[in-house]
């Protein structure tokens, strides 16, 4: 039974799976990291891991949520060590600023920077709530916390986004 499942997960099946799920996973990873190369790396790692568990999933439909969770977990791990995160933020701060051409672009750039400055868990909670539209219970399962904690993370994340983007706008 498992051997049969593994057989069907041959190259072609995996290629189709990658083609179907990688774009959405990459968008999520990019929102969580703000970095093109890192997002692609995370999705590749996540896909390999999720594919390794393919035979253990109850159905093919479970693959997408599984991949999403793995992307979130890997991105959290990436930022787990504060030193890494501080170095990353310092590097971001040193990067040349994009010259915005209009008010909308300024606001977008401010929000983008503010999002990347949120702690990893807050950032994940905000992205999963407002981009993935996941219910609090599902986010809680992904972030391994209680639904009440998710509410708090989202609320603090949005407040920090608002404050940071206002400060950045005013700078």
């Amino acid at each position, binding site marked *: *039974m*498992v*051997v049969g499942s*593994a057989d069907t*997960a*041959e*190259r072609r099946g*995996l*290629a189709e799976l*990658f*083609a179907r799920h*990688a*774009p959405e996973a*990459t*968008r*999520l*990873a*990019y*929102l969580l990291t703000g970095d*093109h190369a890192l*997002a*692609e790396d995370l*999705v*590749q*790692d996540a*896909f*390999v*891991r*999720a*594919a*390794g*568990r*393919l*035979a*253990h999933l109850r159905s093919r439909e479970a693959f997408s949520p*599984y991949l999403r*969770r*793995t992307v979130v*977990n*890997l991105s959290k*791990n990436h930022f*787990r*060590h504060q030193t890494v995160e501080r170095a990353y933020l310092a590097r971001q701060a040193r990067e040349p600023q994009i010259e915005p051409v209009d008010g909308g672009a300024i606001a*977008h750039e401010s*929000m*983008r920077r503010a*999002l990347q400055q949120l702690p990893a868990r807050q950032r994940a909670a*905000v*992205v999963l709530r*407002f*981009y993935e539209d996941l219910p609090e219970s599902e986010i809680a*399962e*992904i972030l*391994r916390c209680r639904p009440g904690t998710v509410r708090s993370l989202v609320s603090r994340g*949005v407040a920090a*986004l*608002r404050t940071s983007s206002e400060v950045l706008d005013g700078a």
Partner: protein
Amino acid sequence: MARSDRSDEMHDVRAFLERMASEAPIPSEEGGAVVRRARRHVGATLVSGALAIALVITGGVAALDAVRAWNRTTPLVSEPPPTPTGSPSIAITGRFGEDDLRDLVLRASDRPTGHGLRHDPSFSEFNGVTSVASTLDVSTSALAQAGLVTAYFNGFLSDAWYDTGAPPEERVDLVSYAILFPDVEAAHTGFELIAAGPTTPVSGWRSEPVDELGEEAQESRGVWNDVPTAAIVWRVDNVVLFLASQGYGDAIPFGVLRPLAELMDARAT
């Protein structure tokens, strides 16, 4: 804040995230290299990850034989007597070296009791970073960056694994690892990575620090890949020790795991 303001704010956040997501890179259509990696991983995970749920589904001895046969034909597992897989060019400045690892893991002669566990020589080997990362479900690149040199593990299975008529709930395994890093600092990083828990989904995962083992230690319990799991990880100098159990009814309780961990710890300290 008024309701309409809050609603506008949520709308702004959604609109911003949608726009930012549209700036994400577009992966290549077939992801050739990733698919090749994934394909290899599918095979490796089926046999070397946490002793394979496949055994439960396909049932006992036949599957176990298939796993052993696969192990004999793949470079992931070496024939006994196993040999270290680490690179001789890595300078090890910590107390322990590759030759110590086999003495640090739980041994067959330790006879872990309580669940009819027996040592299976098929699951006794040196592992490189990829196998360790796959089995412990930790980021391979992070573990490699931490400097993992090599690891040795012994696996134990309950009698129910060999008995096709036994209820699946009686199937319990126990895995003992000694993971070598070049120095204390690298081992500390490795400890933190493993203590952070699996990267793939878990539910009800709870971790607590443990005072009595090594220089830093943590025990964790939860459900990983739908299987109840209990794990203890700790560090002694430049080695990270790991003892974990999975069971389809339940994992081995900490009351049994702890004395076994203390036995390993006593040898290391």
